[in-house]
């Protein structure tokens, strides 16, 4: 049956049958004729001068086409960065290496095996230097990572000083004064928010094909940002945008790690141009672990000051964030996303300082949540500790300090306004869904039996939907890649002559189901069945402009643009229908797959008729351009601010430190919901990643800068078998930031969950005196914390 009235309908993901059956076309599935293959020599040392780099034996290896080192590519310059604070990454190591995994040489060969053999045949000598790994040591500048930089501290973000133009007030004195009050309760926790490896199921992969005859590139890349990659290639190779076509076909997960333009993409393009043949590289899992960006990597102390009866008086964070060795796209800007939600759902003064330091490790950048999980983790952990200190229920403490529904839009100390919210509404729903009172009772019963059962509460608000054009002033755009300087959304809606619809969007899925959601938006707006709507994305030739999928922006920005474009198409269609039916366009109503005149259901023109008419001059109104298409750009005035509260019930085996999640409840509010199944899928995946951080994942460099977690054997990820069934529900508080009233939901689950789990485990062990355990809460840490508390 045709599906038409579908906004908010639980439509199954249209893309899944092809993907599940293995028909999805990913970059590594493509093998152009005459393709050559790349393997990189990567540094096994964290910090060294390269004293010898001899590629002669590698060049003699059977099947080798070429071997390139820094001198061959230095004319292209370092890799571009959007927020170029720090040292930019050389395409290939320039006489020194600064992290394990840094690319030193590129081998191009007839096949991947020969390429790898040649890599093994490269002769390199290193003069090993002491690396900087520890964040406090990095901050001390005892050893500087890059001589040419003034300090290892690339930048310091402060709550009031991050953007001079806003003229914000420093609230530090207010927070400090609150701590001196007689009735002040001050609670501090020093905590780590550990470094993570994004681990997309599809590794990154790129094929560049330079056609010397046409003087143009076709590049397939597993990227979240084909337009930015196209822009970078145009800029670095001095080409017109029309001579660089970038295609991101199916992309098997990104989580932000494919939101960078990488040196390997540029190098593969270079090799293709140099050799006049297609060149391909697919990263290995080891490269994915050590040469694709990492996320998080913060240490810091969070302090909450409040009264004895639960009123928050102020919050302070002093943290250091690890940037890695080189700056890529947004590296130094990532903590800013956390800064904007530093105060969470609460009304209170904030003092927030994050030092961004360079270390001899892989670059960090956006990973699902990007700055926000860190910020919320620090805040919500210390709120929990404060609630315990004053003996108040953790939900009651939160509710007491929430912004109230009538206070929105609520301008925070960071200068931004929370768009809409009913924070207490989400808590009430959570209490009902989880049966909170019963859970408390159960916990007491379990404790009486000597079991270590805990309830964890985690609230969050997040900022997404980038974004407001004004943010381009502080770097949030793709301007350095030659694209327009703002993160606008765009959508092209075209009704074809046979009444099918082609939708072209400036954002593409890495698993989020754009084919489904966009078809719902357009189908609903036009009354055309979802089955007849094709959503195109990820091809710079099909769409002049695209920002990409990240920061939970697709729906609220590009979706909004598509929504507006759909309206325009409908208006034009109404005029054509009016012409056919000899009526006034104002009287045209769309219903049941066609249009009719209001009040006269039999005066009807089917979509097939309208669509055909649009493409023939003799059947369409004289004053109308031919075709039935609209292209709309949408620039939101604010970000969107989704929120929610989660609850976890856990049990700890005190003999082993093993944590078991018994139950998990989440109430999330992302405004209006276009596609409920997709929203729940996003929350599911997001929570899985948050639980992954809380319990399993840890990207570890040892003191010498060796990566100890370079394979999935050593980097445990949560699997379906490790997770409880999640009880998801929603409240709906629309935003007026966009015409659909929607907010992003891609990262909310991650932002809301890690601290919920940690709060639960600490709750379980609080009767033993445990106050904090750093993530990941592997059994060894939990057990050690129990030992320490009982000694």
């Amino acid at each position: 049956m045709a599906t038409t009235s579908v906004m908010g309908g639980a439509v199954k993901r249209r893309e899944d049958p092809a993907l599940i059956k293995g028909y999805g076309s990913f970059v590594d599935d493509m093998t152009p004729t005459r393709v050559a293959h790349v393997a990189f020599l990567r540094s096994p040392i964290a910090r060294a001068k390269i004293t010898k780099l001899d590629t002669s034996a590698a060049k003699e290896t059977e099947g080798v086409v070429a071997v390139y080192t820094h001198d061959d590519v230095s004319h292209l310059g370092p890799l571009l960065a959007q927020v170029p604070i720090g040292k930019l990454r050389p395409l290939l190591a320039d006489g020194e290496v600064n992290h394990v995994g840094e690319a030193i040489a590129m081998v191009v060969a007839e096949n991947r095996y020969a390429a790898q053999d040649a890599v093994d045949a490269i002769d390199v000598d290193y003069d090993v230097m002491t690396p900087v790994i520890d964040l406090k040591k990095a901050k001390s500048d005892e050893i500087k990572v890059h001589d040419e930089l003034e300090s290892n501290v690339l930048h310091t973000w402060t709550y009031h000083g991050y953007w001079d133009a806003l003229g914000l007030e420093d609230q530090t004195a207010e927070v400090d004064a609150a701590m001196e009050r007689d009735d002040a309760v001050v609670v501090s926790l020093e905590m780590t928010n550990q470094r993570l490896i994004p681990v997309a199921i599809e590794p990154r992969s790129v094929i560049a094909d330079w056609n010397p005859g046409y003087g143009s590139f076709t590049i397939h890349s597993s990227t979240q940002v084909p337009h930015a990659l196209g822009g970078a290639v145009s800029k670095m190779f001095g080409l017109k945008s029309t001579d660089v076509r970038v295609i991101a076909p199916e992309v098997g997960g990104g989580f932000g790690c494919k939101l960078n333009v990488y040196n390997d993409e540029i190098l593969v393009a270079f090799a293709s141009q140099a050799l006049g043949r297609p060149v391909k590289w697919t990263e290995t899992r080891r490269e994915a672990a050590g040469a694709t960006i990492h996320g998080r990597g913060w240490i810091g102390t969070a302090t909450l000051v409040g009264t004895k009866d639960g009123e928050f008086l102020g919050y302070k964070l002093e943290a250091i964030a690890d940037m890695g060795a080189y700056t890529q796209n947004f590296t130094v800007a990532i903590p800013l996303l956390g800064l904007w939600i530093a105060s969470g759902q609460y009304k209170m003064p904030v003092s927030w300082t994050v030092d961004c330091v360079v270390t001899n490790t892989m670059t960090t950048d956006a990973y699902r949540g990007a700055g926000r999980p860190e910020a919320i983790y620090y805040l919500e952990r210390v709120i929990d500790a404060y609630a315990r200190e004053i003996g108040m229920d953790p939900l009651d403490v939160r509710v007491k300090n929430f912004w109230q529904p009538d206070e929105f839009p609520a301008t925070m100390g960071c200068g931004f306004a929370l768009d809409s919210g009913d924070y207490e509404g989400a808590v009430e729903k959570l209490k009902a869904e989880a049966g909170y009172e019963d859970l408390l009772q159960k916990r007491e019963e379990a404790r009486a039996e000597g079991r270590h059962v805990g309830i964890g509460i985690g609230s969050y608000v997040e900022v997404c939907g980038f974004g407001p054009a004004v943010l381009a002033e502080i770097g949030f755009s793709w301007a350095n890649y030659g694209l327009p300087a703002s993160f606008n959304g765009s959508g092209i809606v075209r009704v074809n002559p046979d009444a099918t619809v082609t939708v072209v969007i400036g954002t593409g899925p890495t698993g989020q189901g754009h084919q489904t959601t966009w078809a719902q938006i357009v189908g609903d707006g036009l009354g055309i069945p979802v089955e007849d709507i094709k959503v195109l994305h990820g091809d710079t030739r099909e769409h002049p402009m695209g920002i990409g999928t990240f920061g939970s922006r697709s729906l609220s920005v590009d979706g909004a643009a598509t929504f507006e474009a759909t309206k325009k198409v409908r208006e034009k269609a109404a005029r054509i229908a009016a012409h056919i039916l000899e009526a006034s366009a104002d009287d045209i109503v769309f219903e049941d797959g066609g249009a009719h005149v209001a009040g006269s259901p039999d005066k009807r023109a089917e979509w097939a008729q309208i669509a055909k008419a649009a493409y023939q001059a003799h059947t369409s109104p004289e004053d109308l351009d031919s075709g039935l298409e609209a292209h709309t750009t949408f620039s939101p005035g604010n970000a969107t601010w989704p929120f929610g509260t989660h609850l976890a019930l856990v049990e700890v085996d005190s003999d082993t430190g093993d944590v078991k999640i018994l139950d998990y409840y989440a109430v999330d509010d992302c405004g209006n919901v276009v596609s409920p199944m997709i929203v729940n899928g996003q929350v599911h995946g997001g929570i899985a990643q948050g639980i992954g951080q809380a319990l399993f994942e840890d990207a570890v460099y040892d003191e010498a800068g060796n990566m100890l977690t370079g394979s999935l054997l050593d980097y445990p990820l949560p699997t379906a078998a490790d997770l409880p069934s999640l009880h998801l529900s929603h409240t709906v508080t629309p935003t007026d930031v966009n015409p659909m009233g929607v907010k992003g939901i891609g990262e909310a689950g991650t932002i809301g969950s890690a601290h919920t789990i940690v709060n639960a485990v600490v709750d379980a062990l609080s009767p033993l005196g445990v106050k904090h355990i750093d993530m990941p809460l592997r059994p060894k840490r939990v057990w050690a914390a129990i030992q320490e508390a009982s000694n």
Partner: protein
Amino acid sequence: MYPREFDYVAPSSLDEALEALGDDSKVMAGGMSLLPLMKMRLFSPAVVVDIGRIGGLDTIEESNGDIVIGALVRHATTATSPLVAQVATGLATAASLTGDVQVRNRGTTCGSLAHADVAADQPAAALALGATMVAQSSEGTREIAASDFFVDALTSALQPNEILTSIRVPKHQAGEGSAYDKLGRRGGRSDYAIAGAAAWVKMEGGSVADARVALTGVGTKASLANAVADAVIGTDGSEQAVKDAAARATEDVTIIEDLYGTEEYKTHLAKVYAARALSQAIANAS
């Protein structure tokens, strides 16, 4: 993740397979451990001898009080065989807790033993259950006791020209029982063992007449915890007796730290799991 060049042979008879083996060759059964190591270029054999097409190696049979598990019996089969569950319980449990469905469907019980990973599940079970390894080369067949089989990390007593064609596990008789339990790297029983233990006991007249306990995950190889067995024999197998005995779990091992456990923690876990496995084995024996 791209192996060096190697020759691949997939003979259809055991004789041909034995013929193909040499100093620089590797047997491949399920390939679950061999292939990743080759891709990481940590193993680079000149020849891979795939035994997957040899008939008759994929059976579980009973013979003279033993069950005989052939070289191509997958974890999934060992895990779900009612016979193994009944007469070699600890081994069935170890198989059921190994990896995920895909790994259990490809990986073999014998392959895991031959691989001798320090954190694998099967070696501890084989030790506690007193299994015997049957190894064949072109020169003949020899039998190796489990207690002589695990030499070091990723090193068994097999010679490069030998195939582990089967293992023989004594069937539990009346009054005997066994068990396996572990703490996995992803918590619960998920993933390789941070620490695991298998136990076998023989109960007579309400007391422990004989016992074997083996550990995995904590040392350089899976090994028997003889002190625990000695201590529990002759007791009534009560919770306290088991706990006291298990306290001696690490007397015979050198504990190795890793990302999942400090020495102190692993020492503690060895005791916890020795006790858990023993208690369960005693429960299973009655």
